[in-house]
């Protein structure tokens, strides 16, 4: 009762007391809306707010990474499908297969085959050799002493990406996490009859999905890369099969011997290529 009594406004104050709450309310609304709009305007575009990486997704990725990293050698096949945009704007898929053999720390061999192309890639700890089996051309570039360094040098100096390098790098988890800004675990999914865990990561302008085999051997069964910043958001899909961690991989698999009649040609460096771009047309 006392409280109610104290809250009773004086009669002459009535118009004012009625006005104050309304004005205050209006001001507060304007202030709040302005602040929120201002906040939204300043934060939304290019916000530096990093979405979290799901701990389950991170743990599964790390488990896959540890499993591959501890393997001293392995072989695997992959079927690759990638979106290609024709001049008309129509999007089609081109496919090829990759047969990959890797032995740590410095041996790598891949054969890439499609209907019209057939290429070999050899790394023996000293050089990387490219072989065009259709036209029987090969080219060789010097390479650092470890596979990780060789991959980086090949990519940065010569524009060559070793196939499936995200899984052959010595620490796939560390390599991936250097780019990933968010990730989620989407749960169990079957890939070609194999029960897997589906993980989805984002690198911002690129999305990366990976399906990891359930059970004691958490190897990748499928990878999809979506290039969101390219026209048509093309995708690169790799479907893995025939994982083999048992068959020994001797040196001769990684040492390149030119086929009969093969011709050596040069390998263009990205820098010299760019320099050529600067001079062209002048």
């Amino acid at each position, binding site marked *: 009762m006392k409280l109610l009594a104290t809250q009773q406004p004086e009669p002459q104050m009535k118009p004012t007391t009625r006005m104050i709450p309304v004005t*205050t309310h209006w001001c*507060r609304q304007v202030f709040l809306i302005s602040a929120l709009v201002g906040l939204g305007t300043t934060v939304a575009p290019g916000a530096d707010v990093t979405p979290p990486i799901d701990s389950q997704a991170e743990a599964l990725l790390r488990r896959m990474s540890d499993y591959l990293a501890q393997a001293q050698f392995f072989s695997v096949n992959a079927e690759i499908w990638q979106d290609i945009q024709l001049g008309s704007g129509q999007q089609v898929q081109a496919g090829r297969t990759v047969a990959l053999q890797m032995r740590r720390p410095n041996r790598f061999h891949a054969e890439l085959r499609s209907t019209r192309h057939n290429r070999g890639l050899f790394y023996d700890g000293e050089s990387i050799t490219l072989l065009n089996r259709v036209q029987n051309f090969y080219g060789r570039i010097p390479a650092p002493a470890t596979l990780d360094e060789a991959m980086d040098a090949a990519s940065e100096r010569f524009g060559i990406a070793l196939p499936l390098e995200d899984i052959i790098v010595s620490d796939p988890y560390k390599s991936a996490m250097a*780019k990933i800004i968010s990730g989620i675990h989407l749960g169990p999914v079957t890939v070609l009859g194999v029960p897997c865990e589906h993980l989805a990561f984002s690198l911002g302008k690129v999305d990366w999905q990976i399906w990891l085999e359930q059970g004691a051997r958490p190897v990748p069964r499928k990878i999809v890369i979506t290039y969101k910043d390219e026209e048509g958001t093309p995708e690169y899909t790799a479907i893995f099969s025939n994982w083999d961690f048992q068959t020994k991989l001797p040196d001769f698999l990684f040492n390149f011997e030119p086929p009969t009649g093969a011709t050596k040609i040069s390998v263009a460096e990205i820098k010299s290529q760019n320099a050529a771009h600067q001079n062209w047309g002048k």
Partner: protein
Amino acid sequence: MKSANLTSIRNIGVGLVALLATLPLLYAQRAQSSGRGGSASRSEPSRAPMQRSPVMVDRSTHGTIRHVDTHVVQRSGAVPHFDQHILVHHDVEVDVNRPRNWHGFVFGARRHGLWAGYSQLSVNGSPYYYDAGIYYQQMGSDYQAVYPPVGATITGLPDGAIAVDAGNLTYYYAGGAFYVQQDGGYVIVPTPIGVTVPELPPGAAQISINGSVAYQFNGVYYQPVFVNGVTQYMTFMA
């Protein structure tokens, strides 16, 4: 009452200050968004769907996130025109079968007649006949396939022409000819030297120069070279 009025005025002031503070931000955002897709795209509606940025990203073939930012092909400028006949030179190896009429070019091959739809051209006073990327000259009652004549101008590019950037120019490469856009048409220019193309001209002859393999087409040589890990051909003069 006085106190209440002061509170009211203070609240209004704070609200207005906050509102005023956000106005430039709101304006900037609106201006930015209209710049992205507003007036610029409205002024060139036909180009909008296929417009390329000056820097062409091209890395999807490589399939890596480790080097996701490495494989970016820097292009010298926006490709000025895109239509269904033009392919972008991707610097990568893809396996899509796209046979074109000019792939069947054989220098000196004769035919008794021309298909419907051929064009008659005059290049430096000489008559030529053009059909889907191949040029002919009359030999008696026959028509003989000849090398693409420099100076020939056509209204539309041959199907499957490949856009090749070099310096500040964009060439369109088809059937061994390099076209540039000019006055609403496409004119054949002398083969630029030092340009890399993803495929040889049709019928290019393999030769050996100083023990190295090369190819010859219409007086120009093409040297095979690995670019971004795949075989391409760089033009050079012997």
